[in-house]
């Protein structure tokens, strides 16, 4: 059996708000094995970043409402913030969205790294800095960047520095939130491949790769989880999700992607009508039903998770119809 690094059981995390709770992560089950890169896809507001924040126990207004999360067999949701602090960076590490803009302009890169590891009880001695330099070589950066300021580096270089910093203490689990979004096409490819390299070199155990860009995700993810409005829509091997989706949302999302070889004069691609629901007032039922072309009366009930293939699950009542005839239509 493959070793489980992360296991989520019916995880729920809501944002507390005077008008009611925003149910941003609502009942997510997920297992990530060692060596896997788990892609998490979805539109803005679907809860994918919230999931990341929940897993590293931040911020304060985000409340864990139920369910469990196990990291290497240890439950982490019930930990006190003091206990959790010891895990961060060493066992579980997050690269937040827009992290590359978060460098202090008045500090050199090496100062950032030293400050950070000191906070985690590691002394930034010469030996440690040598290790950092080796790590920078892996990402094709010259060790001289350590003595530079963030504004002297390009976006792609900053993102690579960020990845080096987040993985410097060899965390078992790395959460990468939209690390490729602010970058150019060529840098995107490099940064995405770097995540795979870190895994191959066993610097990180496994990773969650969060992005709204399914095309990039498909390039590097072993499995993909598609989220919609706080619910899990579909999870499965990357090839299966991209070429044999079993949830109406995944199917519509993938068929709306432009790709080289399709011009508008030959084939018209279609988006999805409507907008995602308001997560404060959402009741039971499938959350995609308002925009779904497969909708039936059954959809007012929250769908069960059905197994449709090896490690491939979908949360749809009508999954058997998905992909059978609609593809020909488009």
């Amino acid at each position, binding site marked *: 059996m493959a070793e489980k690094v992360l296991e989520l059981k019916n995880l729920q995390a809501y944002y507390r708000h005077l008008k009611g709770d925003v149910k941003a992560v609502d009942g997510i089950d997920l297992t990530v094995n060692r060596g896997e890169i788990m892609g998490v896809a979805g539109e803005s507001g679907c809860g994918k970043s919230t999931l990341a924040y929940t897993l590293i126990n931040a911020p304060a207004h985000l409340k864990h409402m139920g369910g469990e999360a196990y990291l290497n067999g240890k439950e982490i949701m019930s930990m006190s913030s003091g206990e959790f602090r010891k895990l961060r960076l060493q066992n579980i590490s997050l690269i937040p969205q827009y992290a590359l803009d978060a460098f202090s302009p008045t500090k050199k890169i090496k100062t950032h790294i030293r400050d950070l590891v000191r906070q985690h009880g590691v002394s930034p001695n010469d030996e440690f800095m040598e290790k950092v330099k080796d790590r920078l070589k892996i990402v*094709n950066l010259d060790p001289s960047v350590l003595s530079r300021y963030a504004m002297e580096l390009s976006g792609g270089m900053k993102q690579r520095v960020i990845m080096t910093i987040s993985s410097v203490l060899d965390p078992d689990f790395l959460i990468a939130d939209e690390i490729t979004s602010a970058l150019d*096409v060529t840098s995107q490819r490099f940064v995405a491949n770097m995540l795979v390299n870190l895994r191959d070199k066993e610097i990180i155990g496994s990773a969650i790769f969060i992005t709204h860009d399914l095309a990039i995700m498909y390039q590097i993810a072993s499995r993909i989880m598609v989220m919609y409005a706080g619910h899990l829509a579909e999870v499965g091997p990357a090839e299966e999700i*991209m070429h044999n989706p079993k949830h109406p949302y995944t199917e519509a999302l993938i068929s*709306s992607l*432009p790709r*080289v*070889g399709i*011009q508008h004069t030959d084939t018209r691609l279609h*988006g999805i009508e409507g*907008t995602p629901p308001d997560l404060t007032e959402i009741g039971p039922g499938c959350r995609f039903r308002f925009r779904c072309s497969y909708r039936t009366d059954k959809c007012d009930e929250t769908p069960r998770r059905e197994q449709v293939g090896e490690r491939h699950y979908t949360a749809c009542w009508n999954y058997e119809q998905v992909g059978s005839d609609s593809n020909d239509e488009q």
Partner: protein
Amino acid sequence: MMNSKPQEGLLSVRNLSKIFYSGIINREKTVGAKNVSFDLEPGKIISLIGESGSGKTTVGKLILKLLQPTEGEIYFRGQDITNLTSKKEKKRYYSKVQGVFQDPFSSFNSLFRVDRIFNMIFRIFMPEVGKSEQEDRILEAIREVNLTPDLLEKYPHQLSGGQLQRLLIARALLLDVDVLIADELISMLDASTRMGVLNLLLDICQEKGMAILFITHDLNLGYYLSDTTLIMYEGRLVERGGTRKIYENPVHPYTKMLFESVPGVEERWDRDEDFVPEEIDKIVREFYDNHEGQGFSEVEEAHHVLFSEQKID
């Protein structure tokens, strides 16, 4: 396409250059755009593709007269509009050439209701149109972009990005523009809403014969939309030609590398290739050295490639 005289086309750009200077004592030059030439024809879409810093937005701004070119000319319906100065002439130009930008949230004045923004267009560009006709035309434009009239009574913060982006297009429709400069139009939108906005634009383009310069970094999207593709690198047009020709037979090393990095949905990247973005500068220099003196020349019909660099003065 370049055989047509600039006096005859809809919008023609000839040898357009923009050099930015910075510093007072040690004047430093930054090339924003250098020797860019192309023609926009009615009902056609040209995609201008490049990475950040390639000068693609600069070209858009030059055409929209938000920047004054250092060299070169812009022709609109045969008239040289490079040096438009009088307010009246500019207004006439803007009533036919408009831009839509990346961030719809910052394109609207957040203190104004949507209907006020639309009324302003009439006040500025068409003061002769009566009140009731104004309302009719606004409603028609709103309907054309698949929105409901109740949006007119809302403020921008009450609307979603997709709705605002559609309103921007409605605004351009109201003016019945000939040329639309769309700078990263949909990169802020979600995958599911993008296609709605794009298909709308395509329909308008075909029905009204509007020409679009679609500035983007998304190569998949460029292929879907455009008839002609322009690739920019370091402020220069490195490849220009029919979209299919360029995608099937890229010649410039930068274009080739760009296409290799496109994430496809059919197959995965070749992970054995060691891929380092920094090396492209060197490869392009070598390519220019090997083809010295060839300049910007034709490789097949309607497909031009920059073989060697033009000097920057």
